[in-house]
C-alpha cells in the first residue's frame, strides 16, 4: 500500500513539474495563446466551460463505449472462429492485416457518406481500429494453451466447448486483456477521428470548431477531457485485470515485498 501511495505521489509530481515547465516557458517566451496556451488558462477554460463541454463529452463517451464494444465482440469472436478454423484463418489473414493498412482518415469521409452524420460512422471508425488488437491477442492467446493442460482436460472427458470455457479462454486471458488495453486507447482516437471528419457534436467536433474560431484554450480543454476519458477507461480495464488475474498479481505483490522490487 505504501509503495502504491509513493507511485501516485511520484506520478503527480512528474505531471506537475511538466506543467510548470510548460507554464513558465509560455509566459517567459511570450507565446501567443493561439499558438500554445499555458496550462493555467486551459484548466480555467475546462472548469468555466465545463457545462458547454459536458454534452460533447457524453457524445464522445457513447461513441467510444459502443465502438469498443463492437471491437471486442467482433474481434474476440473472429479470434475464436479463426482459431478453430485454420483454413479460414489462412484465407482471411491477409485481409485482416490489409484492413489495418488503410488510413482511417482516408475512409472516414466515406463512412459518413454511408452512415450519415450521426453516431454510427464514429462507432465504425473506433471499432475498425480497435478490433485488430483483439483478433490478434485472442487468437494468439488461445494458441498459447499448454499441451499438458489440454491432455489433462481431454483425459477428464471434457468436450471441446468445456475445454474452451475452462481452459483456453482463462489461459488466454492475460493476452486478451493486453489486447483490450490497446483497443480501448485506440477506440478513443478512433471516435475523435470520426468526429473530426464530420459531426454535429462531440469533443472532436468541438476541437475543429474551436480551432477555426481561434479559441485554442478550448481545443486544449477538449483534449484534457478526452485524456481524462481515456485514463478512466484504461484505469477501469486495469482494475478488471487485477481482479481477473488475481492468481498472478497475488504473487507479484509478494515478490515485490520479498525482494523490495521486481527481479
Amino acid at each position, binding site marked *: 500500500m505504501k509503495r502504491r501511495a509513493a507511485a501516485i505521489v511520484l506520478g503527480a509530481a512528474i505531471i506537475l513539474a511538466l506543467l510548470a515547465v510548460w507554464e513558465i516557458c509560455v509566459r517567459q517566451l511570450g507565446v501567443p495563446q493561439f499558438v500554445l496556451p499555458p496550462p493555467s488558462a486551459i484548466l480555467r477554460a475546462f472548469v468555466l466551460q465545463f457545462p458547454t463541454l459536458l454534452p460533447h463529452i457524453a457524445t464522445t463517451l457513447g461513441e467510444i463505449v459502443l465502438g469498443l464494444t463492437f471491437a471486442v465482440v467482433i474481434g474476440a469472436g473472429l479470434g475464436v472462429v479463426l482459431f478453430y478454423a485454420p483454413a479460414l484463418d489462412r484465407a482471411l489473414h491477409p485481409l485482416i492485416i490489409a484492413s489495418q493498412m488503410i488510413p482511417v482518415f482516408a475512409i472516414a469521409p466515406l463512412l459518413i457518406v454511408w452512415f450519415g452524420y450521426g453516431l454510427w460512422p464514429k462507432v465504425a471508425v473506433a471499432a475498425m481500429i480497435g478490433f485488430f488488437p483483439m483478433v490478434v491477442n485472442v487468437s494468439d492467446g488461445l494458441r498459447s494453451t499448454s499441451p499438458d493442460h489440454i491432455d*489433462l482436460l481431454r483425459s477428464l472427458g471434457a468436450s471441446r466447448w468445456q475445454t474452451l470455457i475452462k481452459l483456453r479462454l*482463462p489461459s488466454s486471458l492475460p493476452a486478451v486483456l493486453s489486447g483490450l488495453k490497446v483497443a480501448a486507447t485506440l477506440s478513443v482516437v478512433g471516435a475523435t477521428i470520426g468526429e473530426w471528419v464530420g459531426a454535429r457534436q462531440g469533443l472532436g467536433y468541438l476541437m475543429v470548431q474551436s480551432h477555426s474560431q481561434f479559441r485554442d484554450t478550448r481545443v486544449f480543454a477538449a483534449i484534457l477531457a478526452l485524456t481524462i476519458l481515456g485514463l478512466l477507461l484504461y484505469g477501469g480495464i486495469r482494475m478488471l485485470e487485477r481482479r481477473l488475474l488475481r*492468481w498472478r498479481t497475488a504473487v507479484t505483490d509478494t515478490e515485490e515485498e520479498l525482494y523490495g522490487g521486481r527481479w
Partner: protein
Amino acid sequence: MPCGKRDLGVRCVVNAIEDRHTAVTVHDLSKTYPGVVGRMPVLRSLSFDVASGGWTTLIGPSGCGKTTLLRIVAGLIPADEGTVRIDGASAPRAGSVSYLPQHDTLLPWRTALDNAVLAWEISGRPTAEAHAAARSLFERFGLAGFEAHYPLQLSGGMRQRVAVIRSFLVDRSILLLDEPLGALDPLTRTSMQDWLYGVWSEMRKTIVLVTHDVEEALMLSDEIHVLGPRPASIRKTIRIPDERPRQRTSPSYYDGREQLLRLLFGDLP
C-alpha cells in the same frame, strides 16, 4: 472377484486364484513418430497387464517412450499397432481413465480447491458436493489451510499433492501417473512417496506409475516393468511381494535396488 462373461478363459482362472482381474491389458503395442529421416520407432511390440487394485510401475531411462505409452493408454493418442483394453473394453477413449500429466499439472488461475474439483465440474456434478469432498481430503492429506491458495503460491510438493488429490477424485478406477514426483527435490520426493502410499492405501485405485526413480518404484509397486532404451520394450518384470509400508533400509530393498540398477544400466562395477 467374480468372473464376467468377457473374462472366460485361462486368464480368468489364473486371476480367480489371485482374486483379481486385469484392469489394463496392453498387447503388442507399437508407435512411431515422424523423425528427421523416416519414422522413429518409440514403442516396439510392448505387452503387459495391470492387475486391478494393484500398483504397477514402468521404469526406464529418460526419453524411452514412457509418456507416449501412458498417453496411448489414456486414449489421448492412437497407437500404430496393437491393442489396449481397459476393464475388458477395447480401444480406450479419452476420459476412460484418470491421467496425471508430467508438467503443468494445475490450472494456475484456479485455487487449490477449485483445481481439485475440476474433474467433478467437467462431469457435471454439483459443485457444493465436490467442494465438500475435496475439503475433507485436503484435511486428511495435509493440505488444510491451502484451499484458497493459487498454484503459484504453493511449493512444488504442495502442488503435486493437490494434483494427486484431483486425480483420485476422478470417478475412474484406474489412475495413470506420469512422473508425479519427478520435479521435486530428493527430500520432498522421499516424504511424498510415503504420502502417496497413504493416499493410495485409503482410496484404493489401480495405479500405473511411470518413473525413472528406483527408490520410488521399490517403495510403492506390486510389479515393476523395466523398459529398455527407445524403442521401448519390456526387459524384465519384477514382482515385489513385501508388505507395505516398506522400509528403505531393509535387505530386500537393497537387493531390489541392485537388481533394478543392473537391469537399467547393465552390469555394475
